[in-house]
């Protein structure tokens, strides 16, 4: 028997809707073919944006979208992507796949995508190979209402009003593909670049500094020590690589039970890393002015056999769904400081929520986890204490989070066991539940959806009983459930 104790009186903070954010890079078929097919495509689109993908993303209330990278961001020169498309500069994407980038998807197209999705744009600027002026003028182009030459250029390109972009990243992975910088050097460069990223009008820019990779605590220490007062948020990246190293990451769909649990163990390892980064942040910023943004996270498997290795196209199983649930739970538990997270990546790349092939689209198990978690967006987190036995490799059988919003309590519970059901009793302190409903996503660990069959999808679940303020249910193996109490 496993126990969950929800205490709605203990609230760590608001579950920022941006914890369920996404990331889209000019990489493989994420932007081109995945999100954008162009106005002349036979695939149904609105202003070049795929209608089917946009509708799917709206259904999970995508709150924020990061663009244009990733590593691509520090090689992206925004002026290449504005103006008449026939005149836009062509380049070879040297980071990813060596394919020709025709810049037909640029600033205006990204803002149109965000408009259609109803989400906040998060623009990542180029510090690695761009100039201070270039970054400064991009912010001006996006956000200024003044009568300057840069703003007139935007007018000429068909946009009168300022876009009011709030989230702006000052470089990406500058410890690696963004310039191979030492933290001390980046810390100084960050101070310089962000100085010229101005606020325009009422719009207060959220200046986001490049943070560490995984457990690089020294990078966090140096940045927080020197730059905390110049930033609104700092990033970290964490990927779950099932295999022993980057050369042997493992198949997305063919894996053993041992590899399944190893994957979940590695996914769970993000939480103590976050906690240690938060300790460092607390020392230099006890008032919590600076948020932590996990703007790249997710599984990284071998590419699907026969696909371009530089496109990072991988399938997505129930194993990935469990990784998503465990990761989102970690972010929710630390919502007092973790203000945004962006899964890598939205479409056709890494742990995608949507896969496309021509005019076909498949929703992955990870998509359905985002669907099950959407009620948490902007809810008040509720303390959630879970007692369950470990199943393998130190992975506890159950993980759960809860939040309260508009008079409803949402409890999301994941059963990590590959083959064992869990008998669960959940007590609800500080919340008088009168009715309960639930949805569940479950399957074998290797189940996935493709373009010919879509067997993995959430369904209504009447297996949760409410009596005397307690919930009882038997959660199937390898499952994620959303339980709503009114």
């Amino acid at each position: 028997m496993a126990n969950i104790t929800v205490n709605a009186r203990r609230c760590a903070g608001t579950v920022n809707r941006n914890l369920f954010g996404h990331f889209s890079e000019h990489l493989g078929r994420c932007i081109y073919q995945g999100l954008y097919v162009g106005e002349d495509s036979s695939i149904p689109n609105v202003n070049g944006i795929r209608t089917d993908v946009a509708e799917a993303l709206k259904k999970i209330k995508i709150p924020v979208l990061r663009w244009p990278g990733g590593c691509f961001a520090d090689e992206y020169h925004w002026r290449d992507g504005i103006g008449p498309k026939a005149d836009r500069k062509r380049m070879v994407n040297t980071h990813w796949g060596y394919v020709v980038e025709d810049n037909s998807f640029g600033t205006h197209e990204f803002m149109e995508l965000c408009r259609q999705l109803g989400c906040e744009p998060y623009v990542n600027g180029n510090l690695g190979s761009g100039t201070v002026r270039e970054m400064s003028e991009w912010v001006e182009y996006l956000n200024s209402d003044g009568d300057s030459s840069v703003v007139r250029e935007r007018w000429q390109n068909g946009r009168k009003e300022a876009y009011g972009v709030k989230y702006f990243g000052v470089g990406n992975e500058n410890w690696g593909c963004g310039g191979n910088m030492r933290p001390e050097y980046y810390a100084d460069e960050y101070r310089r670049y962000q100085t010229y990223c101005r606020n325009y009008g009422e719009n207060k820019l959220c200046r986001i500094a490049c943070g560490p990779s995984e457990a690089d605590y020294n990078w966090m220490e140096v940045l927080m020590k020197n730059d905390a007062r110049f930033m609104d948020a700092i990033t970290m990246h964490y990927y779950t690589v099932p295999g022993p190293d980057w050369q042997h990451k493992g198949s997305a769909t063919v894996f053993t039970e041992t590899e399944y649990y190893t994957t979940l163990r590695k996914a769970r390892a993000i939480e103590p890393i976050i906690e240690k980064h938060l300790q460092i942040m607390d020392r230099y910023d006890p008032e919590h002015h600076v948020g932590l943004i996990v703007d790249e996270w997710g599984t990284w498997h071998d590419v699907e056999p026969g696909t371009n290795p530089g496109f990072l196209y991988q399938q997505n199983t129930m194993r990935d769904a469990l990784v998503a649930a465990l990761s989102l739970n970690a972010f929710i538990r630390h919502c007092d400081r973790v203000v945004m997270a962006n899964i890598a990546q939205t479409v056709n790349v890494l742990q995608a929520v949507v896969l496309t092939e021509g005019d076909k689209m498949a929703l992955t198990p990870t998509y359905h986890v985002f669907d099950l978690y959407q009620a948490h967006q902007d809810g008040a987190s509720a303390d959630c204490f879970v007692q369950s036995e470990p199943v393998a490799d130190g992975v506890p059988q159950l993980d759960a989070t809860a939040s309260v919003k508009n008079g409803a309590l949402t409890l999301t519970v994941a059963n990590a066991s590959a083959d064992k059901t869990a008998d669960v009793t959940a007590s609800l302190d500080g919340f008088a539940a009168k009715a309960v409903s639930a949805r569940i996503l479950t399957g074998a660990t290797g189940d996935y959806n493709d373009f010919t069959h879509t067997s993995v999808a959430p369904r209504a679940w009447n297996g949760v009983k409410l009596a005397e303020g307690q919930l009882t249910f038997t959660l199937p193996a390898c499952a994620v459930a959303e339980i709503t109490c009114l």
Partner: protein
Amino acid sequence: MICRRCLLAEMESEKPLYELLREWLAALPPEDAAAPETVQARLSACRACDRLTNGMCALCGCYVELRAAKKRMGCPDTPGKWE
């Protein structure tokens, strides 16, 4: 080097990748393999397609020599060019 009409087999610069592709092709179970004449017809269509670059289809990210060899696969374009 970028070639818009080449298959991997024809590109000297892509030889290591083509060798890997040959291994995948050799490992394809006979029941999953398309007939040789079907493969040739599919690849002819790919060669004439604007979406082909360095042996890869931009619509699906697949190397077409492997995709064409799999019986159950189709052309990802709309309408498909293999039919």
